[in-house]
């Protein structure tokens, strides 16, 4: 099962967990990103996520390919949300199931690290007195 979605509605941890559950799985690792209430001690009010959706799905699909090839995973579920998010809401969930747990940790961490580098999704932080496109400038 390869469950890749970009959604405009709230994400759900249980859904991603259930998508990768399997009697042959020894372990499931789930990473849940959360919108933090501050960046470098500046108070974040809201976040806006924007995506070039067809390419983002394609890039996430490449990540999934690597998980199957390199870590022999059983299933993967990657959901990313776009639109306006409030503090504490979930922009991303990645769930991976594998026969042995070590591979699940490694694969899940690779997936989130790579997603943050290659997938065309952009985050704008809204502060009380301004906005910033995250990572845009050095």
């Amino acid at each position: 099962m390869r469950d890749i979605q970009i959604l405009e509605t709230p994400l759900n941890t249980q859904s991603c967990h259930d998508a990768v559950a399997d009697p042959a799985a020894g372990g499931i690792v789930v990473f849940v990103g959360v919108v933090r209430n501050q960046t470098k001690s500046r108070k974040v009010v809201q976040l806006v996520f924007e995506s070039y959706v067809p390419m983002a799905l394609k890039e996430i699909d490449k990540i999934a390919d690597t998980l199957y090839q390199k870590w022999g995973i059983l299933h993967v579920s990657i959901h990313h949300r776009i639109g306006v998010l409030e503090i504490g809401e979930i922009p991303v969930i990645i769930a991976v199931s594998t026969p042995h747990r070590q591979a699940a940790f490694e694969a899940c961490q690779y997936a989130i690290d790579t997603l943050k580098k290659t997938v065309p999704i952009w985050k704008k932080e809204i502060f009380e007195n301004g906005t910033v496109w995250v990572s845009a400038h050095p």
Partner: protein
Amino acid sequence: MKIKLVTFGIAKEIIGAPECNLEVKVPCNIGDLKQILMTQYQEFKKLQSIKFAINENYQEDHFLLHEGDEVVIIPPVSGG
């Protein structure tokens, strides 16, 4: 020749529109396009990086553009 630029994130704010047409000389590759944009829009020089995608795939500097190509400007991504 004419190419179409599509923008997201901070690139959309720099260009001032989600898409626009651009007239470029032939031949023109991605590297040339990057130079043209940095000259026309100084703000692009300040970015951490700038990449380009065609047909939903990243393309390198040497990739040659053709009339009517739709080029997506990919400023530094920050998903997750």
